[in-house]
């Protein structure tokens, strides 16, 4: 009942190239759902279809109760997004960034002021409020970026490789933030190519060549592929050698 994302036979073709090839899955409210795969495996394309950035070639996707093809505007109002490149304006101050995105999502001025104060104190950024974002350390920028994506209280947040280029400690802290958010009932869709991060996800879908090669909790995936960690699971799935057979029988 509480399914916030329903995806049925979703495909995206660029000419003869099948970037996403017939994927189906469902995500429940408050879940942390990971999209894993090598670069070019189709995770970013899948994410872009779910956020309404690009139209699917075929198949159906429902996000926050609305069809992405028929009602992308309704979807957009209910989701938050943080891109793999940095999603804030570096030449604007912390406060200006918050105000801008509040404004873009149509929040009233009083609400924005209230949210700004709450956000600044939660992130302990009161002293840096009028500094340009470019002056903040990367870890802070990332937390700020995440919080800004949550400003309009979306049901689902899409994180496209949010931790690329960040040191492990900062990455850990960032994941604590993600957990806290999910506990409040916000669904998290995250793409990553760090296999250790996959362990943090509630469920993980492994993408290879546009298809979902495996989908389960990290625990069960490790069991299924007889692997010590997610890295090994990934290697067994992605390497096109004798283990390919294991993969296919495992999927059925």
């Amino acid at each position: 009942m509480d399914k916030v994302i329903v995806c049925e036979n979703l495909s995206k073709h660029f000419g003869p190239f099948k970037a996403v090839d017939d994927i189906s899955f469902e995500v429940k409210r408050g879940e942390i759902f990971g999209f894993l795969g090598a670069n070019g495996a189709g995770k970013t394309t899948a994410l872009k279809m779910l956020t309404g950035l690009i139209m699917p070639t075929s198949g159906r996707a429902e996000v926050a109760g609305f069809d992405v093809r028929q009602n992308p505007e309704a979807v957009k109002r209910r989701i938050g997004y943080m891109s793999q490149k940095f999603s804030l304006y570096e030449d604007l101050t912390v406060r200006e960034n918050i105000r801008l995105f509040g404004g873009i999502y149509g929040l009233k001025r009083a609400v924005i002021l209230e949210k700004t104060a709450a956000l600044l104190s939660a992130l302990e950024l009161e002293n840096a409020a009028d500094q340009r974002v470019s002056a903040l350390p990367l870890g802070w920028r990332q937390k700020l970026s995440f919080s800004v994506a949550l400003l309009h209280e979306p049901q689902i947040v899409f994180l496209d490789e949010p931790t690329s280029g960040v040191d492990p400690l900062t990455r850990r802290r960032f994941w604590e933030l993600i957990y806290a958010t999910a506990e409040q009932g916000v669904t998290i869709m995250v793409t990553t190519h760090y296999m250790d991060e996959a362990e943090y996800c509630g469920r993980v879908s492994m993408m290879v060549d546009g298809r979902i090669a495996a989908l389960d909790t990290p625990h069960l995936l490790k069991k299924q592929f007889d692997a010590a960690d997610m890295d090994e699971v990934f290697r067994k799935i992605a390497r096109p050698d004798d283990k390919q057979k294991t993969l296919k029988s495992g999927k059925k």
Partner: protein
Amino acid sequence: MRHFFAFIKKEFLHILRDRRTLMILFGMPVVQVLLFGFVLNNEIKNAAIAVYDPSKDEASTALVGKLVSSGYFRLAQNLKGPEEMEAAFRSGKIKMAVVFPNEFAKNAGQPDARVQLIGDASDPNAAVTLLNYAQAIVGDWQQERAKAIGAPRLEIITRMRYNPEQKAVFNFVPGVMTLILMLVSAMMTSITIAREKEMGTMEVLLVSPLKPIHIILGKTTPYLVLSFFNALVVVLMGMLVFGMPLRGSAGLLALSSVVYMFVALSLGIFISTRAQTQQAAMFMSALGLLMPTMLLSGFIFPRESMPLPLQVIGNAIPATWFNPIIKGIMIKGVGLEVLWKNLLVLTGMGLVFLVLSLRNFKDRL
């Protein structure tokens, strides 16, 4: 509307925070007008000349005197023989040489009288200009002399209409205006959109409830305002510093400037749907817009003297159609009855590129 205003405000903040953009926006028009107006002048003064005058009589002395007193020439060298001329040209000491025959005064009234003017055509523009000056002065001198001895002569009366002093700035101010508006409207817009793509913020905007048309309008509105301000600065500088007239309607000039900016802005958006990085956008605008605007629109080189293919390409450049509008309104004082065709072409160009870029916008970004 609230989200749209939040977006425009951010755009202005970007412009105000970036020193490089500010310099281009506010420094460029002033520098370019001054540069073109004062430095890149077609007029040559005090060009060094050498004279070979074996006759040294009253007529040749008077003619040399007339050349020098015109202010365009200064006598740098008296050649002792024709063989010295080559060295003088080679060393670059002189730009033109005047060669008299023997017994000039005696022959000057005769039908086959001659005097030779030799220019240094390693710089062809300067050479042509200098020879024209010298020919005019020699012609003058001949008239006076003919009058003095009572010989019948055909007198040619020339008048340069609209710009009797032939001020080069009358040509440069409209040219600079076409260039600056293209620079600010097209180049800056394409760069700022490309910057959003490069930084990854464009994705965030596209995922937001902002519609593509909001993003386009939000991006272009600030530059439209700034372009208009720049056009005002260029026209005012032309009038106040260089004494350019405004004989036609200021309102029509403003209106047609806005039409031209509309074309430039839609070109800028069109480029940004193609360019993924700021550098690519800058490169495409410079090569695809600024160079043709300068070289093919008739701003620097007259279109009439271009080979046919270049004239045809020139027709596709907005400045080719906008330049005559500015000149027509400011210098000739004509109105819509003459310029409607140019305005129509510009409007059409703008619409075409706007439709093309709107079609491209979503897939390409």
